[in-house]
């Protein structure tokens, strides 16, 4: 065998090895996805039942009970968080895209927003603890919603910014040349054109906060009883899942799996729905 042939064979071998390894890496990633989803679904369905939606979280050692208070608490806090943060986020995104695009102020805010987007959620929880819980003197649903709001905010800012910048310049110019004031160009033309994208961002942020646990631990705390008063401590599904999964009681563990399944299903459904909304635009 000539040395050229040997070199050629070696290169082919390295190439084949790299390709096999990259295939294996992909299989590795998919394997864990399937494993985690399989476990969540099989364990969760075993514990699923109507009682989850009709009964409160049980005290230790009891063999009945559901998660109604936690479900309602999560729903309320997530909705309030989105309602508070989405308008601010849309406004900030408009500012970035329409007023300070290509300006150093805009670049700075974008930079900070991207950091906020990836900032650890537990840090935001601590921030809201010092900002809301300490001054008001107690844990509350409001504090939980504000903590979740700080997670929604950067997501909405970013999608709004990106989606508005995607609107063709001609649309702005056509509108402005008709003498329409800038605020109406924003609200009646740009928002309308960018609406599916902005909605997708809001939905994705909702999916993200519905599974968040860390920021709620010391803002909304937890509540074993039925409560719709946002100024009192409030239960949340991820919080209850955390508490029940760490406990030695078997029934609590079972409930935790059911809660985990509900959260996962909710997150997956919203992500799929968000993709559909975005796809219909195209």
């Amino acid at each position: 065998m000539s040395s050229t042939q040997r070199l050629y064979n070696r290169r082919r071998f390295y190439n084949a090895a790299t390709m096999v390894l990259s295939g294996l890496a992909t299989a590795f990633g998919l394997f864990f996805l399937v494993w985690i989803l399989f476990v969540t679904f099989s364990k969760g369905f075993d514990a699923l039942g109507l009682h989850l939606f009709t009964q409160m979280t049980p005290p230790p050692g009891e063999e009945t009970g559901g998660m109604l208070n936690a479900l309602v608490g999560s729903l309320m806090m997530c909705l309030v968080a989105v309602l508070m943060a989405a308008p601010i986020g849309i406004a900030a995104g408009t500012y970035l895209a329409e007023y300070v695009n290509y300006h150093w102020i805009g670049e700075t805010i974008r930079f900070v927003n991207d950091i906020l987007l990836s900032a650890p959620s537990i840090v935001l929880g601590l921030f809201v603890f010092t900002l809301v819980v300490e001054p008001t003197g107690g844990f509350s649903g409001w504090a939980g919603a504000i903590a979740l709001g700080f997670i929604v905010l950067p997501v909405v800012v970013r999608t709004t910014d990106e989606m508005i910048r995607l609107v063709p310049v001609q649309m702005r110019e056509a509108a402005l040349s008709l003498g329409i004031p800038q605020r109406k160009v924003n609200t009646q033309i740009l928002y309308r054109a960018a609406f599916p994208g902005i909605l997708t961002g809001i939905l994705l942020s909702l999916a993200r906060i519905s599974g968040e646990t860390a920021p709620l631990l010391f803002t909304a705390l937890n509540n074993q009883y039925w409560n719709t008063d946002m100024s009192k401590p409030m239960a949340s599904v991820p919080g209850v899942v955390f508490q029940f999964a760490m406990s030695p009681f078997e029934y609590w563990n079972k409930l935790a799996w059911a809660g985990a399944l509900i959260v996962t299903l909710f997150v997956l459904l919203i992500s799929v729905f968000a993709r559909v909304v975005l796809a219909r635009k195209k």
Partner: protein
Amino acid sequence: MTNIQSLSRTKTDTRNDRLFSLTVAVAGFFVLISLFAAAAMMFKGGWQAFSTFGMGFLFDANWDVAQGHYGAMVPIFGTIITSLIALLIAVPISFGIAIFLTELSPNWLRIPVSSAIELLAGIPSIIFGMWGLFILVPFLGEYVFPWLSENLGEKAVIGPLFQGPPLGIGVGTAGLVLAIMIIPFISSVMREVFLTVPTQLKESAYALGSTTTEVVWNIVLPYTRSAVIGGIFLGLGRALGETMAVTFVIGNAYEISAGLLNPGTSIASTIANEFGEAVDPLHKSSLLALGFVLFILTFCVLSIAKLMLRQLKKRDGN
């Protein structure tokens, strides 16, 4: 008359336009301020700890709630070690996934596989934690850890890494779970930047007889180097601050040890475990100081990531 009407209309329009731009500007600056307010509030909250223990707070390995003595060394060490283990596992795997998706996979497989990997990013971290605690920990404790400590624990250099009680809970487990969690982030950045490599460059290399591997190593990687590093730092930023999954599997023990099989603790898991029960103001302040340290750590890592990713954007001209 029409003149007066249009004049007054122009006036109200100008005023409303100003109001509108002022409102959105306030919202924009709200984003800017909230990040710095978060840092300031946590620094203020942690001031008592910083002033009591001084700079030694960061290098003191003794965290004793009963004695009222707090040093942040162990949680900081745990955070960094688990994140590094996660990177060691996640970077090659993500690289493989990105190569598979951009160079190897048939077209019809690309979208399903990449959306499946992205799905992994959408799963809440508490699910990773439960799966880790109830499924992965027993599995590792029964099959993997005993084998590791038996076969590798006696070896000369790497031996100390694999000694310890084969419980399944520990720093190594936390690193593995973190790795799985950050794979989708790193691989999606890598895949995106690999796609920005001009086709002419790649085709020229192919035309000269390069294999796919050689194209990836000699053309794609050098072209995208800074963005790839940015993507890795983005993953690192995620891993540093991840709370729930780590809290479930790390074991929450305040000791520094070389062993991957030993329980440890991280900044985020310490805060999650103790903050609710912290009564002593100094304890609370120390936890806030830990939060401040974590914030600064992730801020630096994420800033580097952003700067690295920005370089690629600039070169593209957009």
